């Protein structure tokens, strides 16, 4: 069988999307250093291939749930970097009117149901979105992104079991970057291959190189198709690595500089796809450069937009607590 594609156009879109994530995150870190972005900032740098490779199979009607490391998922799902940056700046033009910040960006218009400050907070939401799709017989799919750290919380077990037994159209995507905050995965669990846990729920599991967007694309295609056909969830594990700290400012005493530079030097997902495209003759070095430059412009525009936007006024404080005014 196998999954068709991606087409040349899709490949170039994925290449641009990965740059969009990378440059957005670099800019967010810079702006955090400048004091413009406040609070906690967890970047997706290094993990771009996962979000992009998965979301390439989704339309705006499909759902995703995300994590504290959510910017990459937003961009992969098609969110607007200007409104994202404005949210990080705490401005009223941001996705959540400045009320959410980095850990809570959502864009329901493109099916992005929200980043989440609670590790494993997305399992219930994605599984519930899968139930809604099944009840409506809409053919929509829900993807739940989560880290290796989330596997050790109860909602992983409870919701995957539910998704499995009700055959819900959900894909559970573990981004196994081998660390939960500052703790290496092997120190807190004996099962480091998360995909193998699928057997406990009677659903297929698959493991892919999460630094290779084409591998992610293939595996995600099968899992999403299966979900759309009504055959139930898949547990897809993407082995990956975050190149920067857990959060901006993390001194990273729990891992070596060599380990980091091995991964960023030899497994950079953007470089990997760029090289592939050039070998295939789909992209020249000049074209690659120009894609990067135009994304850079876009991000610069996002910063300008954020910076020029006003802060929310006090009238926003009590708005949105309930969806209709309570007498």
């Amino acid at each position: 069988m196998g999954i068709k594609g991606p087409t040349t156009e899709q490949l170039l879109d994925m290449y641009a999307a990965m740059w969009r994530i990378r440059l957005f995150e670099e800019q967010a870190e810079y702006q955090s250093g400048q004091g413009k972005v406040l609070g906690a900032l967890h970047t997706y740098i290094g993990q771009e291939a996962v979000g992009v490779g998965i979301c390439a199979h989704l339309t705006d009607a499909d759902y995703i749930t995300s994590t504290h490391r959510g910017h990459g998922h937003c961009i992969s799902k098609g969110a607007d970097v200007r409104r994202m940056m404005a949210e990080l700046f705490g401005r009223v033009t941001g996705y959540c009117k400045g009320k959410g910040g980095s850990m809570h960006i959502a864009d329901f218009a493109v099916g992005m149901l929200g980043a989440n400050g609670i590790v494993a907070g997305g399992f219930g939401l994605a599984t519930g979105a899968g139930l809604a799709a099944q009840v409506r017989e809409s053919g929509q799919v829900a993807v739940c992104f989560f880290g290796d750290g989330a596997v050790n919380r109860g909602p992983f077990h409870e919701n995957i079991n539910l998704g499995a037994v009700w055959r819900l159209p959900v894909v559970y995507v573990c981004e196994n970057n081998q660390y939960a905050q500052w703790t290496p995965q092997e120190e807190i669990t004996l099962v480091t291959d998360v995909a193998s846990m699928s057997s406990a729920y009677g659903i297929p599991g698959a493991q892919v190189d999460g630094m290779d967007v084409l591998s992610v694309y293939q595996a995600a295609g099968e899992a999403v198709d299966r979900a759309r056909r009504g055959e139930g969830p898949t547990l897809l594990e993407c082995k990956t690595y975050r190149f920067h700290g857990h959060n901006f400012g993390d001194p990273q005493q729990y891992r070596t500089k060599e380990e980091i530079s091995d991964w960023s030097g030899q497994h950079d997902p953007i470089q990997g796809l760029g090289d592939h495209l050039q070998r295939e003759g789909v992209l020249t070095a000049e074209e690659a450069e120009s894609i990067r430059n135009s994304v850079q412009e876009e991000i610069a525009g996002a910063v300008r937009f954020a910076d020029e936007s006003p802060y929310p006024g006090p009238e926003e404080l009590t708005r949105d607590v309930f969806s209709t005014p309570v007498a």
Partner: protein
Amino acid sequence: MSSPTEARQLTFSQAVNEAIREEMDRDHRVVLFGEDVAAAGGVWKVTEGLLDRFGAERVLDTPISEAGIAGLGVGAAMTGLRPIVEIMFGDFLPLASDQIVNQAAKTYYMSGGMTSVPMVFLTSMGAGRRLAAQHSQSLQAWFAHIPGLKVALPSSPHDAKGLMKTAIRDENPVIFLQDKVDIYQKGPVPDPSHEYTIPFGRADVKREGEDLTLIATSSMVRQALDAASELAAEGIESEVIDPRTLAPLDEETLLDSVRKTARCLVIDEGYQRYGAGAEIAALVGENLFYDLEAPVRRLGAMDVPVPFSPTLEDLTIPGKEQIVEIARQMFED
């Protein structure tokens, strides 16, 4: 109280660290576990150096499993250990609430006094760090509501150390909340050679005054003291009292003060609705209604999820200005 001259300046986190270290030295049954508490020393540096000193048998990093580690702590406490379980943010206490509320709090009573649950849930609370709605809450009232739980929330490094030592020695489950906006603030703490504990249920008068009682908890004590200085310039002398533990609550000290001043404002950073302030205001109202010169007032966080944007977040947290304003109102006829 020791004289401040012999005191060193420690941060809250250093003071709590020292308390844990002393108690682990003193009692080999005390163990500590939580997310990133061992090798990394905790997100607030509260557990720094404890792994090196006490080893991996007694200081353990856990997976992200709040319900799991809370329950495991209860079981270990029932069977002879005295666990300190760190829950990184107070906002994550709800993840462990079944174990805290239905197991830890009730086991002693339900078993007719057969087995106590001597353990500490060490966590953080409070807004002000731009961490938004899921990392900024002050949920002390939830836990003070539950019979069988004790709740401590210190307002100074000195109190933090003394209360933590008591929490570890207590035979019951204790929720220990560290206000993260102050966690790196320094204050005088006596030299380790001068050992002290602070009993639960003993309020501390942080400032004496005749005209108005300000009852405040955690970082709200600082706000109340600042407000008291400003009010003093207007001729209003405030007494600032920190209950230090909400459960048990030192009713006597609070009531004695209000009996003297006849005016009372309670400030606590939990959501105002159904909060600690409501409980204390009711206590004062029930006991001293006819002594009061003005209605008891309370001030808590606004009843909205804590917003991210600094312009909004700052408006939701009770502060000096609001305290001063309410206090002035209490003197208008």
